[in-house]
């Protein structure tokens, strides 16, 4: 597989959107101000739309997409359905905000919306789990996608909360972020182990190619350094209760997004079929 840019951005933006939506929902419990929620909700919607748009770019005949409605079992149907449901929930959430609905109502919407959002974050990775591509044939792959969505959600909430002074919220977000970062690291390592022991070993999908071969810059630079280490060090750069400046928080989010995209590129490069003829 080459670098499937449209799919890289599709899945990365969907991760950002669903992650942000869930994170904004979580912030309901941290009693954040309405601005954060409003902006968060809008950001989630924009990211989902950007993801959806990228996926359409990937299609040869987007005008025929309605043909997919007749086949609810396909992965693409699942993805489209979940994007739609998550988007609907985000819209409902924004309307609720706008109409000054009670926290209870908003929380309820957030909880309901979290379900398709989490499923979506997982599903965009799960579609790639297939026996034809040994390096993708593991549930660890959608786990990376899911956790990367969580990370993007944490960091985008970090940007939204950058002017927030409420210490408990800042602390909670920072610890959550660090936890997700650690989890992401663990799952990425676990994924590499899965790749290493996958059947039909082949040089095109070997861990050696990732660690020391031509994918090493992408892995060490993109996934590890930019995607994990930079956000981690930015997160712990200031004392726990102090929020990051907007610039630093934004930088951390951009880095994590680059890291997410890098991992996807890595995945596509490893995604060679069992035997490739052509």
């Amino acid at each position, binding site marked *: 597989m080459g670098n499937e840019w449209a799919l890289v951005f599709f899945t990365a933006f969907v991760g950002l959107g669903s992650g942000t939506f869930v994170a904004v929902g979580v912030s309901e419990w941290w009693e954040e101000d309405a601005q954060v929620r409003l902006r968060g909700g809008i950001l989630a919607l924009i990211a989902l739309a950007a993801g959806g748009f990228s996926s359409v770019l990937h299609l040869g005949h987007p005008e025929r997409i309605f043909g997919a409605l007749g086949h609810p079992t396909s992965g693409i149907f699942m993805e489209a359905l979940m994007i739609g449901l998550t988007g609907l929930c985000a819209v409902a959430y924004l309307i609720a905000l706008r109409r000054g609905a009670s926290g209870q109502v908003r929380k309820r919407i957030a909880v309901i919306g979290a379900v398709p959002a989490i499923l979506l974050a997982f599903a965009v990775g799960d579609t790639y789990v297939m026996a034809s591509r040994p390096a993708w044939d593991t549930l660890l792959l959608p786990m990376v996608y899911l956790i990367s969505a969580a990370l993007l959600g944490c960091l985008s909430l970090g940007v939204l909360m950058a002017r927030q002074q409420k210490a408990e919220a800042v602390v909670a977000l920072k610890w959550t972020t660090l936890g997700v970062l650690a989890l992401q690291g663990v799952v990425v390592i676990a994924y590499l182990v899965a790749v290493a022991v996958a059947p039909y070993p082949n040089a095109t999908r070997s861990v050696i190619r990732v660690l020391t071969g031509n994918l090493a810059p992408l892995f060490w630079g993109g996934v590890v350094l930019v995607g994990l280490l930079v956000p981690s060090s930015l997160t712990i750069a200031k004392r726990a209760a102090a929020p990051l400046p907007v610039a630093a928080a934004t930088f951390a989010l951009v880095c994590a997004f680059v890291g997410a995209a890098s991992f996807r590129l890595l995945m596509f490069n490893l995604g060679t079929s*069992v035997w*490739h*003829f052509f």
Partner: protein
Amino acid sequence: MAHKTLVIDLDRCLGCFSCEVACKMENGVALGVYFNKVLTIGPTGTFPDVEMYFLPTVCQECADAPCVKVCPTGASYKTEDGIVLINKDICIGCRYCMMACPYGARSFNNDAKVVEKCTLCVHLQAIGEQPACVKNCCGKARLFGDIDDPASDVSKALKAAGSDAVHSLPDVGNHPSVRYILHRKTATWQQSQPENTGRESQNG
């Protein structure tokens, strides 16, 4: 149920690329795209004790075709004869089926923006003829027929070859139906994907 497919006798394949060109002529396949591609397997071993055979690769017409399963619109489908086909009029060009194929046997038509692959020349079958690659094969190495029918030429050829000499590509649950005959006398069947096949764009 019928399952029409190819049986390719590698003891007989001369590596002449006739099937490849016949396919391209018959189906107007674009440059750099192949429905049928002949790979050179080997020479393996160390000079002068070496072995080599040719592997004409083609859609494996899987019994449990993953490309059909993942297709979001039903554009990839299976005929009553067990042949996997693509309805190009409803293909949305998502290429998911290309990912699902364990052999990379499908390709994207950049002009029509749809996925395509070997059709076993269904348009020729419809008028009672064999696929172009079978008809023109110089080594008479290719047989086409119903592998589920014990009386068919393909079934007989497989029986005559003996099970030790009958091979198929790795099965990851898709159950490929194309069979390759290769006797140890000619060469040893290579279990893993070959590295140098004499074809540049391979492994790409």
